[in-house]
């Protein structure tokens, strides 16, 4: 096809006057080059933005980096009074909050996607699918507002005391906070945010599984669940993994909603009901009113967050591109 597209001058034959033809040819040459150049510049600008972000954020983090070095990552004290800063409590908070979110969201999202692709009545499908996608359209700040004022009190009065009383022998279910703010609330809010992301990718994956494969399984006498377990899920495994990693990337980087519900704390606690902070929420919560050294330490946190975000997204995108078993079938 490209060979055809790249010879735009065939028509010149039909041109009557040689002069008009050549003038038009020149105009077209300029137009082609111009559009190509313009779009190329736009594409390069888009790419350059990512490079500029990486450069600038590392540059901003440099003062704290030269002072604390890589030891910053493993240091567990964050003490503005004594001027010692370490990232470990926030890395811990980020990991735990994201883990809670993934543990809740992954099975839920896969179940929703299966319902939407295999079970839901035809006329109903579109409605439920767009409702699930609307969930993704709720701004994080609104979800956070709901998290502090509605979910928090509910957790503090009902769910957390109940879990503490009944399964409190597991140390992570410690004493609840009176406000309900903490890692657990943050994990719940994050799970609401990432369920629609994972579910909508998984739904597309499941719909792309070749019909013949699924029908073949059904014709062999499997139940619908056995078909899902034997055909649909194995065929889409890597895609599901990528969807989960994308959800993880979103959970790791969410700042606003987490800041609102996590309660803010600088200690590593086993108790998931306790207040904590993630990398992103610490930056959002503390930047204003911090002195210069703390500010640059916060920018160091931002650089760490950038690295984590880049790595998770890159992994997810590569998994999608390299291990896509449906690529051949869907095309």
């Amino acid at each position, binding site marked *: 096809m490209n060979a055809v*597209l790249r010879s*735009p*001058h065939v028509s010149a034959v*039909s041109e009557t006057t040689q002069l008009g033809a050549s003038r038009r040819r020149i105009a*077209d040459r300029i*137009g*082609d080059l111009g*559009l*190509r150049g313009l*779009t190329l510049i736009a594409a390069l600008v*888009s*790419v350059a*933005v*990512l490079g*500029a*972000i990486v450069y*600038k*954020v590392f540059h*901003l983090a440099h003062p704290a980096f030269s002072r604390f070095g890589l030891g910053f990552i493993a240091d567990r004290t964050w003490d503005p009074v004594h001027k010692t800063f370490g990232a470990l409590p926030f890395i811990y908070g980020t990991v735990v909050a994201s883990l809670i979110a993934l543990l809740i969201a992954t099975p*839920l*999202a896969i*179940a929703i996607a299966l*319902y*939407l692709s295999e079970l839901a009545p035809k006329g109903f499908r579109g409605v439920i699918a767009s*409702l*699930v996608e*609307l969930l993704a*359209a*709720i*701004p994080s*700040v*609104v*979800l*956070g*507002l*709901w998290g*502090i*004022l509605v979910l928090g009190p509910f957790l503090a009065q009902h769910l957390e005391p109940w879990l503490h009383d009944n399964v409190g022998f597991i140390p992570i279910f410690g004493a609840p906070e009176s406000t309900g703010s903490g890692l657990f609330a943050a994990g719940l809010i994050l799970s*609401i945010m990432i369920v629609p992301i994972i*579910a909508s990718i998984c739904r597309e994956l499941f719909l792309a599984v070749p019909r013949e494969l699924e029908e073949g399984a059904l014709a062999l006498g499997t*139940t619908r*669940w056995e078909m899902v377990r034997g055909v649909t899920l194995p065929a889409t495994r890597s895609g599901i993994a990528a969807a989960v990693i*994308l959800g993880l990337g979103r959970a*790791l*980087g*969410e*700042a*606003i909603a987490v800041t*609102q519900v996590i309660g803010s704390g600088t200690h590593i606690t086993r108790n998931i009901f306790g207040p904590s902070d993630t990398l992103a929420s610490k930056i*959002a919560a503390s*930047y*204003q009113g911090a002195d210069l050294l703390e500010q640059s330490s916060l*920018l160091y946190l*931002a650089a760490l*967050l*950038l690295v984590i*975000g*880049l790595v998770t*997204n*890159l992994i997810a995108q590569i998994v999608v591109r390299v291990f896509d078993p449906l690529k051949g079938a869907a095309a």
Partner: protein
Amino acid sequence: MSAATPEISLRPGGRLRRRLIVNRCMEAIGTAAALLAVAALGLVIVSVGVRGAPALSWHFLTTPPSLFGGAGGISSAIVGSLLIVGVATALALPLGVLTAIYLTEFASRRVAAAIQLVLDVMNGLPTIVTGIFVYGLIVIGSHQKAYAGALALAIVMLPVVARSAQEVLLLVPATLREAGLALGVSRWRTVLGVILPTTWSGIITGTVIAAARAAGETAPLLFTTSIFNPALSTDVTKALPNIPVLIFTYSEQPDKVLHEQAWAAAFVLMLFILAASLLARGVLARSQRRLRP
């Protein structure tokens, strides 16, 4: 023979029965999960509606926030948000569409794949990092500016606009391109005169969705245009009040009146976003019907 009763029961027993029961359970779990997600959506929307709607009034929409708490409005925040999102869209739309045209019309397969990867990675970056980037670029050593916030939002919107424009451009049948070229129309005239016009509705849909998402983004604005300045203003070279930061700041205060205002502002924001997404969805459905005969 007539007295013989059938020995084989038609009811599933043993293993098959267990398999059917497992199947039923799994189907029930799937249905329950979908209901749970819809219920969560309903809960949030109802909470915002119930708490936000009563505080909503003409006064609330047309008064700027009051300086010392108490019953103000959000007029300047609405104006600020519209301006910031408008400028962001004006930056992201042309850049995104041109990038998409490069990807579909000019780039070689390998270059296109690389640029797409960059766009997808950019789309997943924590938005607070984008905010920090613009803060370091423009705000540091100076003061907060609304156009800095708009730039940060534009960076957040760019990959969404570019990828969705690319998707609609790819939907344009190859026959249209070939017809243009076969008639001797040059490449750039084909792109601008034949291909792009068929995709406008799709591109607008993508842009509206991106703008709706950007309208609720708080993190990129936190370091760029969040200084409390309630006065009504349209000067984008100073920090402008805006809805997301207002909700965020109010929600962090231990003040019932401010919470009420935050709910009402959230209600306004949600109405705007829902209306925009529904509109975009409608336009998209129409354009897809037209492109896929």
